[in-house]
C-alpha cells in the first residue's frame, strides 16, 4: 500500500484495502452481528412510508442482509452497491430479486437513476471525514424531492482511524451524534428522528457500540 506525502493513503489504495478487508470478513460479519434489531426497525419505518414498488438504493449493502432482503420482500425495487466482491456475491445469492453493482458509495452517479429512498447502514463509516459531505450531497442528488434518507453510524469520534475488526485491519470514521446532526442538516436533509441503540456484538473481540439511526427527508429547498 502506498502513502501520499501527507501520510494519507490514496483513494484507490484505501478502497482496495477496505474491499480486501471486507472480502476477508465476509460471513464472519453475520456471526458477530447476528441481531440487527435497529436496522430492521429502521427498514420497517421506511416500508411504512413508501408506496409499493418504490426504487430504493442500499448504499453499502454488504451481504444484502437484512435490509435489501427486507425491502425487496416489501415489494420495492432495490439497488445495492458495495465495494466488496465477496459481500456482493453473498448478496446476489440471498436477494436474487434485487440488482447489485460493484461501486464505491463515494462514486454514486446519475446513471443509477433517482430513488424514493436511500439507506446507508454502517457504510459511510468506511470513508474519511473529508469525503463524507460530498457523498451526502451525491445521495441528496439521487433522491426524489421529499425522498427519505436513512443513515446509521456507530457513535464515535474517529476519522479514517485504523482499527482491527474481526481480525482484519480497517479504517473507520465516526461522529458524536451532535456532529452528525449538523452534517446531515448541512447537506440539505431534514432530520425527522434520531434513535440510538446500545449494541453488543456476539464476540469477545469486539466492544459494545452505540448505534445511531438518523431518519431524514430531502428538504425541498435544494
Amino acid at each position, binding site marked *: 500500500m502506498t502513502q501520499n506525502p501527507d501520510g494519507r493513503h490514496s483513494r484507490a489504495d484505501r478502497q482496495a484495502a477496505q474491499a480486501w478487508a471486507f472480502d476477508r470478513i465476509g460471513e464472519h460479519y453475520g456471526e458477530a452481528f447476528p441481531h440487527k434489531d435497529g436496522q430492521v426497525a429502521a427498514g420497517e419505518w421506511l416500508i411504512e412510508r413508501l408506496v409499493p414498488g418504490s426504487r430504493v438504493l442500499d448504499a453499502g449493502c454488504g451481504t444484502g442482509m437484512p435490509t435489501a432482503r427486507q425491502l425487496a420482500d416489501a415489494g420495492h425495487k432495490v439497488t445495492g452497491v458495495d465495494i466488496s466482491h465477496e459481500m456482493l456475491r453473498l448478496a446476489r445469492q440471498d436477494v436474487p430479486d434485487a440488482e447489485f453493482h460493484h461501486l464505491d458509495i463515494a462514486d454514486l452517479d446519475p446513471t443509477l437513476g433517482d430513488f424514493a429512498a436511500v439507506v446507508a447502514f454502517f457504510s459511510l463509516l468506511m470513508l474519511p471525514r473529508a469525503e463524507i459531505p460530498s457523498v451526502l450531497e451525491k445521495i441528496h442528488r439521487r433522491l426524489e424531492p421529499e425522498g427519505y434518507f436513512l443513515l446509521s453510524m456507530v*457513535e*464515535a*469520534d*474517529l*476519522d479514517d*482511524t485504523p*482499527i482491527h475488526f474481526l481480525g482484519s485491519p480497517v479504517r473507520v470514521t*465516526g461522529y*458524536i*451524534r*451532535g456532529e452528525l446532526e449538523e452534517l446531515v442538516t448541512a447537506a440539505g436533509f431534514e432530520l425527522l428522528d434520531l434513535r*440510538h441503540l*446500545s*449494541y*453488543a*456484538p*456476539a*464476540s*469477545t473481540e*469486539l*466492544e*459494545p*457500540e*452505540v448505534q445511531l439511526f438518523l431518519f431524514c427527508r430531502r428538504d425541498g429547498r435544494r
Partner: protein
Amino acid sequence: MRWRGHGRAESAEVHEHLAFLHAATVRIGADLELTQVVTALCETMVPRVADLAAAYLYEAVLTDGDLPALPGAPPDAVLRQVAVADDARLRDRTLVGKLAVSDLTGPFASSVSSGQLVMWPDPDHEREDVTCVLPSARPGSVLVAPLRAGEHMLGFAVLLRAPERTRFDEIDLLTAALMADQAALSVHKALLYQREARVADALQRSMLPKHPPRLPGVEIAYRYLPGNPAAQVGGDWFDAIPLPGSRVALVVGDVMGHGVHSAATMGQLRTAVRTLAALDPPPDQVLRHLDQLFEHTVGQYGEQYLATCVYCVYDPVARRCAIANAGHVPPVLVHADGRTELVPVPAGVPLGVGNVSFQTIEIAAPDGGLFALCTDGLVESREHDITEGLDALRESLAKGAETPDDLCENVLHALHTGEREDDVALLIARFDGIPSASVANWIMRPHAQAARHVRGLIATTLTGWGLEDHIDAASLLATELVTNAIRYTTRPITLRLLRTETLLCEVTDDDHHLPVLCEPSESDESGRGIYLVSRLSHRWGASQTAAGKAVWFELAL
C-alpha cells in the same frame, strides 16, 4: 510369667511372647492418627497384660500446642483420657476423664515427674494414693507408664489388674514399657505428620481467595476441600479475576504433587495468573506465558512439577465465554433449561511440559446458564473413573439450585464422599448477563474536544437511564480521566458507561503509565484529577492491559 528355666516349654513360651510383642508393635505403629495409636496400645494390653488399660494425653498434644518436656510438666498442664480398654473383671471401674498435672498424686505424680515407669503397690514402697485417676474401688495392682518421645512428654498409660489376679511382674513391666515407648513414638510421628499436613493446608488456604467478588452480570461461588491428610495431596486452586470492560476471568487449576511444595507452587501460579490476567491477553496466551514461567521459575524444587489449568473469560455484555485448557478437566456448561454439556475445548497438555501451543475457543454463554469448573478430585477416585464422575457431576448440576453457592453445596454433598483422597476445588459461575441497553461504549480520538464530547455523551446517556442526578459528578470525574488519558496517548481512547447497581465509568487508552494517587499541591496540575476521583467516587481503580491501561470509577446509585 516366669522364665527361670531353659527347658523346651520355656522356649515355646518365649517364642509365644515375642510373637505377641511383634503383633502389638505392628498394630500400634499401623496408624497415623493419635487416638487410633493409643487405642491400639490399650487394646493390645488387655487382657494379656492388664484387665484395664487407659491412655492420657496432654491437651497440648491434642491441640498441636507446645509439648511439655522433661523433667516434669507444668502444674497447670491438662491431661485427657483419650482411650480405654477393659475386660469383664474391671468393667465397672471409673476413671477420671480430665485432670491437671497438679492434681496428680502417688505413682502418677512420680511417673510424670520422673518420666519413669512406676508400679503400685510397689513391694518396696508404702501404698500411696491413686484416687486422683481411680476414684472408685481399689484395684489389685496399678502400673503407670509414661508416654514420652525423647524429651517430649506426651502423657501416660495406666494399666490395672483386678485384685484376684497376681500383681505385675518384671516381664509385664518391660512389656508395658516397650509398648508405651512404641505408642509414644507413633503418637509423636503422627503429631509431626499432622503438623505438616496442617501447615500445607493452612498454606494452601491462605493462598486461596476467601469470598468470591461481587460483579455485575455474573454470580460466582466456590469451595475448596482439603484431601485426606494421610494421602498428602493438595495444590488445587481457583480464582475469579475482574477484568476491564466488566468481564471476569474464571480459573481452576491443580498442581500435581503433594504437601507443602505443591501448595507453595500453587501460590506462585495463582499470583502469576492474576498478574497475567490483568494484562488481558487471550486465554491461550495466558496459558502459554504460564507454561514458560513454570519452566523457568516454578519447577525448581528438583522435582518435575506439572500443573493443569483451565482459564475462561466471561463477557456478560457479549454473553460469550472464551476458554483455553492446559490438560485440565473441561468445564461443564449448564443451560438455563438444565441441559448440560462438556465444553469441547481442546484438552491441551499440562503446564510445565513446555513448548506446546494452547487453543482458545469461544462459546455462547446465554443468560441463566452456568459454568462449573472443578478439579479431578471431585470427579475421579479409586472406585470411579473420570467419565463416571463427570456424568455424576452433570446429573447433580442439572438439578439446579437457587444460587451458585447452594449448587456448590449440593454438588459436593452428592459427589464428595468420604473415601476421596484428593483435594477438591469447585467454582460455579452463573451467567446473568448485562443488557446491552445498560452499556454504552465509545471510541474517541485523543484530542482537545474529547472532554466536551464526553460531557455530552454522559449527559444524554444518563438522562436516558433516568440518572440525571448523577450527571454532574460523572461528567466531572470522567472528564478528569479523559484529560489524563489524552495527555500521553496518540491512539484513540475508549469511554465506557455501565449501569448496574452502581454506575461504572471506565476509560482505556494505550499508554502504560498508571495514574498515581497523591495529595495535590498548588503547583501540581496532574495529580489533581485522580485525587478528585478518589474523593468523589464510591470506588476507583486502574489496571494495566496488554494494550495500555484502564482507569475506572464507580458512583453509588
